[in-house]
């Protein structure tokens, strides 16, 4: 528990936490407001009638709940991967893992509790980001002169906790992947770089190897939270060509999450720490 709370305190004060969260929120708010503001003009979403309709649909409730969440999970997945890599990599780059190990701390416990604190930060970030996204969508709807009467749709609201939980699980898996890559690379920068390359590599590979890529971490993360509406936006790995059914995808997310953490823990336990 000491390690978990310590991990949280470190993350709360860490500039990377605010930079990454700020980037996500900044992009989300900017896009949603821009879409709302231009939905009735010729500039909106391609300019044609279909584009304008799509732009209005984006900020129309209750569907906007899902679309905001898709955006957060899509771009947030990449950011979570970067965040996980930054936290794990810095433990090696800054030598702080070394200090803890020299005090007799278990390497496995240290790494797993570090990740657990990342998990909680992501959960809090996800909820806050979603709240801000909804507010941005309401403003966007007003700018687009779209009714917000669907805001209180009880059926949609009833499903939100489950959707957020699944989304958190998916993002957590992506963070775990970054965490593990940076652990293996023993470096913040190398971990982030390799993680981003993996993310875009998977997207690119999905064009040529869809049947394989659909089992890959970013694809399964996306598929596990897909609503089937096809109205999401915000990118998010190679889930666009072939995807697993949501329940299978969720299972694969769990496999990737546990597998990644197992590799990170095993490597940390066996590694020779120097420098």
């Amino acid at each position, binding site marked *: 528990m000491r*390690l978990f709370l*310590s991990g949280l*305190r470190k993350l709360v*004060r860490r500039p990377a936490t605010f930079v990454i969260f700020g980037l996500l929120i900044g992009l989300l708010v900017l896009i949603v407001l821009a879409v709302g503001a231009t939905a009735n003009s010729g500039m909106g979403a391609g300019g044609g009638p279909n584009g304008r309709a799509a732009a209005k649909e984006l900020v129309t409730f209750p569907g906007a709940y899902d679309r905001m969440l898709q955006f957060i999970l899509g771009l947030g997945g990449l950011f979570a991967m970067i965040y996980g890599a930054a936290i794990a990599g810095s433990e090696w780059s800054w*030598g702080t893992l070394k200090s803890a190990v020299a005090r*007799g701390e278990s390497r496995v416990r240290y790494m797993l509790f570090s990740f657990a604190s990342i998990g909680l930060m992501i959960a809090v970030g996800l909820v806050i980001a979603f709240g801000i996204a909804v507010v941005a969508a309401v403003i966007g709807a007003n700018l687009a002169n779209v009714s917000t009467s669907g805001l209180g749709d009880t059926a949609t609201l009833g499903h939100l906790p489950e959707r957020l939980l699944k989304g958190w699980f998916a993002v957590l898996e992506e963070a775990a992947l970054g965490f593990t890559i940076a652990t293996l690379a023993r470096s913040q920068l190398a971990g982030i770089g390799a993680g981003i390359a993996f993310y875009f590599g998977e997207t690119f590979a999905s064009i040529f190897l869809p049947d394989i890529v659909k089992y890959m971490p970013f694809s399964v993360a996306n598929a596990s939270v897909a609503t089937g509406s096809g109205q999401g936006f915000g990118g998010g790995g190679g889930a666009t060509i072939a995807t697993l059914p949501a329940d299978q995808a969720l299972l694969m997310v769990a496999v990737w999450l546990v597998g990644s953490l197992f590799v990170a823990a095993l490597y940390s336990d066996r590694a020779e720490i120097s420098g």
Partner: protein
Amino acid sequence: MSGMDGLALATRGLRKSYGSRRALDGLDLSVPAGVVYGFLGPNGAGKTTTMRVLTGLIHADGGTVELLGRPFKRGDRHRLFEVGALVEAPTFYPYLSARANLRELAASGAPVPSKRIEEVLDLAGLCDRANDKVQGYSMGMKQRLGIAAALLSDPKLLLLDEPANGLDPAGIVAMRDTLKALASQGKTVFVSSHLLAEIQVMADVVGIIAAGKLVREGPLKELLSMQGVVKVRVRPNLVDAAIETLAPLAPAERLTETDRDEGWLAVRLATDRAEEVNQKLAGAGIYASGLESGTDLEMLFLELTGGQGPSGGEGAFVGLGGLNGGAPAGKGTAA
């Protein structure tokens, strides 16, 4: 605290290789409890590798380690709860303050009462800057914080790798006093350093390693008394007579003529035998115009490590009367 044999730290046959390079080649260390132990060796001798093995950062290929009288093997990480360590450069979260860094470090390993953080900050002289972010610290301040971190658990055994790095003279003196005080309280301080002068004034026991092996270990006074030098100045035309007179005191290889023109001779003897040298010369009607005695850790170090100088090392010749004149003993022509 320590084992049956009174050792706080012991290694037996410690081996470690990096690829084909052997970093430790059967290292046997015996560190008594309650002393400051100076761990010396030239660059690449295996000092840092030893420190890493002792702190569980790397694992030895063979041999055994005992910490505070109990075996320390893979999985015995709890042994380190009673050990404080500063290995290589001190490491911290740059975006946190010194106080916050210590608090987060205290969350790992042995539990630490929160008041201990204030105690070690005070001990390290960092109270005034304790809330400043570490990224703004100078190297010396980081080093102070590193020493504070090593002391966090009030350890029985302290392992410090080059603790004087980056410290200003006042900081070095304060650190030395602190370490000596800890040893006087029964704690064991194991200091790896290349600063021979620092070790000479601080350590009770030294171990010198070269090429991964221990080449000499023992109480510093004992080692230095074996390495003592008495220097005597006589009239230049009496140098040969003086050598003949002093021959019974020391074998020829321990009797060195350091500067014939100035009449300086060096006799490698225990420093407390200076009076005997003077008496012997006077008895033969040779009156010394100068007499100095001292010890030289650097000379011992160079002799044992095959002439590999400590990196950036400074030899110290701590003369009882202050040695200034004449060439360093042992560097002249053998008589």
